[in-house]
């Protein structure tokens, strides 16, 4: 009962006219929230984290693969993003291999069968120690993911890391709108 009375008093105090000393006032309270834009790279079977995603390659023979998703962790749909790729040689004097990134469009990479349930689209190759891959024309809604496969060239023995950093800028979400209501 006490709680009910307190809630009622709170509601009344939130929106009440008052008259005192030759003045009259009216108050009303509301909240405003802003959205956010954010995409993160998340490895298969890894917990999402607000951090770069690092792949450690140790290639002896054949082609090595790594699967990850680009997850829209924000509250707006995202039309594009910038994937910054940094590759670092692990030991030796060579340089990191080229790494190719393929999107499984409208589908998901199956990590067991190494197949794409949608359409496989090559989105770029990191050829230097620092590369950038631009994604555009996306319509990645809040909470949605892009399924990506990274792969090394065949039969080049090498050990290196590939670190992915995802940038989303303001112009990769919708423009401002005017709402009347």
């Amino acid at each position, binding site marked *: 009962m006490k709680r009910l009375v307190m809630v009622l008093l709170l509601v009344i105090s939130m929106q009440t006219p008052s008259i005192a000393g030759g003045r009259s006032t009216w108050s*009303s309270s509301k909240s405003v929230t802003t959205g956010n834009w*954010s995409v993160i790279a998340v490895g298969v079977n890894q917990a999402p984290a607000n951090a770069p995603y690092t792949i450690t390659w140790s290639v002896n023979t054949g082609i090595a693969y790594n699967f990850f998703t680009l997850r829209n962790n924000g509250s707006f749909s995202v039309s594009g993003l910038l994937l910054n790729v940094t590759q670092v040689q692990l030991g030796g004097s060579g340089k990191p291999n080229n790494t190719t990134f393929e999107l499984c469009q409208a589908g998901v990479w199956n990590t067991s069968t190494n197949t794409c349930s949608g359409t496989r689209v090559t989105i770029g190759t990191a050829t230097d120690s620092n590369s950038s891959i631009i994604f555009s024309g996306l319509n990645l809604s809040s909470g949605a993911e892009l399924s990506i496969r990274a792969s090394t060239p065949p039969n080049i023995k090498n050990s290196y890391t590939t670190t992915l950093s995802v940038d989303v800028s303001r112009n990769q979400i919708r423009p401002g709108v005017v709402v009347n209501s």
Partner: protein
Amino acid sequence: MNEVKVKRKSPWRLVAGAVMALSAAAIVGQGVLASLNATAFNTVAENVNSGDLKLSLANNGVGFSQNINNLAPGDVVNRYVTLKNDGSLDGINLSLKTTATGTPTLLSDAVNGSTNQALRLTVSSCTVAWDPTTGTCTGGTITQEIAASTLSTLSNATNLSSSSMSSGAFKYLKMSLQLPDQNETTINGTLPSNTVQGGTVAITYTFDFAQRVATTTNS
């Protein structure tokens, strides 16, 4: 030696005696000294009523009944409310004060030194009711009542440009809240420092007016 005792009369006996004498004189004198008196009065009582001052607010459309969510830079949300002077007295100095708490970058530009970062409120009026779905003031005249101001600026009561409201008058207001367009880049899900993203502000709008200036009337 003989002792002589002087018996003094109590002063209270003298006072009591004087009072009794005066009372007797008054009773006897009434019959002798009656005077004439005349009285005039209004046969119908004069009523004096004090006026009252009442400001009421009604939502026109959504008005202040709903929160505003998920604003993006460049967004403008127009909400419509109608003030009415519901009292018998004319009102003057109509003002708006906002009490806002929450994310500092949304309250004031001073947080990161930007000149156009925080939320801005613009108040306009129309001489007729706004259409809240289209935002039009058909057949009326629009007046900017309060220029675009941050919520921290409006923490001081600010008079509307047309701040008088006669008894029974309406004021049709458009409350236009804007998040200025601005660039921010989020890297790996980490929001930039002093960001406007993911913020929350609770705003209390308080309209206030005073009674008209007191007058002296001869009639």
